[in-house]
C-alpha cells in the first residue's frame, strides 16, 4: 500500500473543484422529521485514494455513504452546497439517471452480504447483471468477464461457484462475491460500509489485502466506512473522524495517527485496550453519543470532553487547517499543549 502521488502542494478543497476529484462533498446536511442528523459534512475523495470515515454507531457515517449513493431512506431531507461525482452534480439527478451510475461508475458493498445479494439468483447471474445492464454485453461475453472477475477475487473453483446460490457460500466467500459484483464494471468509486466487520480476523486480513490490490489495478477510489481504528491505520490514505453528524478532524493517515488533535480522536484512541493497560482501568469516554433530538449547542462533543470551556458549549468550532498543512481540526482548544495548562 504505497501512498498516492498527488499533483502540487495546493489543497484542492479550496477554490473550484479540480477535475481529478472523484467525489466532492461540501456542506452536506441530512435531516429527518425536523432533526438534523448530518450537519455540514465536507469530504473529498481524489482519484485512486482510499479515504476512511471513522466513527461510532449513530455518528452518521453510513448515512453519508447512502446520501452519496442516492440511497438515503425515504423521508430524508438532503441539502448540500456541492455534491459532485467526477465533476457531475449529483443533486439534480433523477432516480433513472442515478441508476445508470450505480453499479457502473459508483458501487457499494456492505457489512452483511446476505442483505445485498439476491438469495434466489446464482452467484454468476448476479455478477453478470451489471455487465448486461450497463455494458450491454451479450451472454457469452458477460459470462467470461464474470468468471474472470470471480477468479480475480480469489474464489476457489469459480466455475463451480458460478452456478451456486449465496446461501451455499461461507461469509468470507459471500463478501468476495459482493466485491466481484461491485467492481465488475470497474467503477470510479467504491463505497465500502464496514465490509470486514462481520468477518473473522484472518478472513478480514485477506479481504483487506484483496481490496487494496484491486483498487490499484482498477484505479478505483474507495470511501471506506468503519469503526475500527486499527483497520483504518492499515489501509487509509486519508481519514475523516466523524462525531454526532459532524466531521471533527480530517487529514492524512499520518496526520491522524502521528499527530492526532481533536479530543474525540484522542478519546477513541485512549479507549482501546493497550498491553500496558493490563490491570488498569481503560480510559472510557464519559456519557454517551447524543441522540438526534438532543444535540448539544456549540461543539457536539463538549459535554463529554474533559477540555471543554464555555466557548465550546456556546459556539460551533469550524473545521480549520492546522497552520501550513491540510490537516483540519474542529476544536477551539487545538493544539492542546498550547491551550491546556
Amino acid at each position, binding site marked *: 500500500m504505497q501512498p498516492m502521488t498527488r499533483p502540487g502542494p495546493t489543497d484542492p478543497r479550496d477554490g473550484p473543484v479540480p477535475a481529478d476529484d472523484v467525489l466532492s462533498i461540501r456542506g452536506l446536511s441530512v435531516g429527518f422529521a425536523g432533526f438534523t442528523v448530518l450537519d455540514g459534512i465536507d469530504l473529498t475523495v481524489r482519484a485512486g485514494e482510499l479515504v476512511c470515515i471513522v466513527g461510532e454507531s449513530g455518528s452518521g457515517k453510513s448515512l453519508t455513504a447512502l446520501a452519496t449513493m442516492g440511497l438515503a431512506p425515504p423521508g430524508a431531507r438532503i441539502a448540500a452546497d456541492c455534491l459532485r461525482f467526477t465533476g457531475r452534480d449529483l443533486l439534480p439527478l433523477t432516480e433513472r439517471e442515478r441508476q445508470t451510475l450505480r453499479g457502473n461508475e459508483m458501487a457499494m458493498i456492505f457489512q452483511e452480504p446476505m442483505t445485498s445479494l439476491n438469495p434466489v439468483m446464482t452467484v454468476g447471474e448476479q455478477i453478470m447483471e451489471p455487465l448486461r445492464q450497463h455494458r450491454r454485453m451479450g451472454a457469452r461475453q458477460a459470462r467470461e468477464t464474470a468468471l474472470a472477475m470471480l477468479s480475480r477475487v480469489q474464489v476457489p473453483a469459480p466455475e463451480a461457484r458460478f452456478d451456486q446460490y449465496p446461501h451455499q457460500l461461507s461469509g468470507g466467500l459471500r463478501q468476495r462475491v459482493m466485491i466481484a459484483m461491485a467492481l465488475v464494471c470497474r467503477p470510479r468509486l467504491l463505497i465500502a460500509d464496514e465490509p470486514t466487520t462481520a468477518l473473522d480476523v484472518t478472513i478480514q486480513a485477506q479481504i483487506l489485502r484483496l481490496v487494496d490490490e484491486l483498487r490499484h489495478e482498477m484505479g478505483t477510489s474507495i470511501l471506506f466506512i468503519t469503526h475500527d481504528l486499527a483497520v483504518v491505520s*492499515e489501509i487509509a490514505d486519508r481519514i475523516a473522524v466523524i462525531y454526532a453528524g459532524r466531521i471533527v478532524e480530517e487529514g492524512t493517515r499520518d496526520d491522524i495517527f502521528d499527530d492526532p488533535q481533536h479530543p474525540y480522536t484522542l478519546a*477513541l484512541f485512549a479507549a*482501546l485496550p493497550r498491553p*500496558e493497560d493490563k490491570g488498569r482501568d481503560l480510559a*472510557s469516554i464519559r456519557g454517551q453519543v447524543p441522540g438526534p433530538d438532543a444535540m448539544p449547542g456549540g461543539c457536539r462533543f463538549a459535554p463529554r470532553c474533559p477540555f471543554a470551556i464555555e466557548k465550546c458549549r456556546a459556539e460551533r468550532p469550524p473545521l480549520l487547517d492546522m497552520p501550513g498543512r491540510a490537516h483540519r481540526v474542529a476544536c477551539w482548544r487545538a493544539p492542546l*499543549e498550547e491551550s491546556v495548562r
Partner: protein
Amino acid sequence: MTRPLLEVSHLFKSFGGRDGLFRAGRRARVVNDVGFTIGRGETFGLVGESGSGKSTIGRTILRLLEPDSGEILFDGQDIAGLSRGDLRRLRRRMQIVFQDPFSSLDPRVRVGEVLAEPIRLHGLREGAAIEARVDELLETVGLAPHHKTRWPHEFSGGQRQRIAIARALAVEPDLIVCDEAVSALDVSIQAQVLNLLARLRDDLGVSYLFISHDMSVVRHIADRVGVLYAGRLVETGPVGAVFDRPSHPYTRMLLAATPSLAGRSRAPAQDIAGAPPSPFDAVTGCAFASRCAFASDRCRTEEPPLDTFQAEDHRAACWHVAELPPLGPEAAQGDAAMSPAYRRRIDLLRRAQAGSPA
C-alpha cells in the same frame, strides 16, 4: 492448594446426525477433547474464529447444551450427573452474559423486575430486601435506582449490557460466562464495560470464562487464555506468554492478521491463507495442517497433543514447535509504537479525564 472453581476435561460435543436437522450420518464435531481449568477470581479467555467451538463450550459448561462426553467439575461437583433440582441450585452460581443486549432482555419486562425475578426465584431475599438489593445491583453496574421503572428499550446498548451484567450478578454467582459480551459495543462503551467487569472481579471475586474473537480485549481482561481452532485447543497459557511468545503457527497467524494502530510500520503480515475446515469434515492429524506453512506428513496423519511444547503453564499442540522460525525482535507495542506527539496528547487527555468528574 485449593481446587480450581471449574475443571473441564476431555470435553466432546457434536451436533446433528441421524435424527437431527442435518442429513443422516453427517455430524458436526464442534468441540474435540477440550480441557482447561478456571481458578477462583480468575479470568480464562477463549479465543478463536467463528466455528471454533468457543460459544458451544460456554453453553456446555452451563449445561444449556449436553456434552457428548467429558467431565465438567464445578467446585468439585460433576455437573453431568446432577438431578434437575441440584442443577438449578448450581445454576445460581453460574451465569452467562451474551453478545446482543437487544435480544437478551425481554422488552415487556421493566428493568427492576428483570433483576428482582432471579432473586425471588432462588429465594435469596424476601420482601423489602429484594427492592434494596435491586437498587444495590443497579448502583454496582453504574446505573441509578430510578432506572428500575424503565423498559429495556429506553436504554442504549452499553446500558443494556450493564443491565444484563446486573441480572447475572443478582444471584451472586461464582462464575460468569461472557460470550462476546463487549463485541457489539462501541469502543468507548466497551471500555466502560471492561472496567466494570474488572472491578466486579476485584471486589466480588467472580471468575470469568471470557469468550471473544478480539485478541486485544482478551489480552486486557484475561489471566490465562486458550486458543481454539476447529474445536481443539491448540495453545494455552498465561496471556503474556501466549501473546508475546506464540508457539503454535495458528496463534501466530491470528496475531499477524490482527490489525494494529501502528499500521503500515509493521512488517508485512505473514501469509494468511485459507479458511478453517468444515466441522462436518473428518479431520485426521492436525486440523490446522491445511493452512500451515510448516506442515509435514506427520501433521496430516497424527494429531499433536497439547504438550508438544510445555514451559510451565504455557502449552501448545504442534509437532514442529521446536523448528518454528524464531519470533522477530520484539516489536514496540501499545503507545511505545506511536509518535511522540501522539503520546504527549494521549497523556494530556488521560490527565484531563482523571481530573474531571466522571
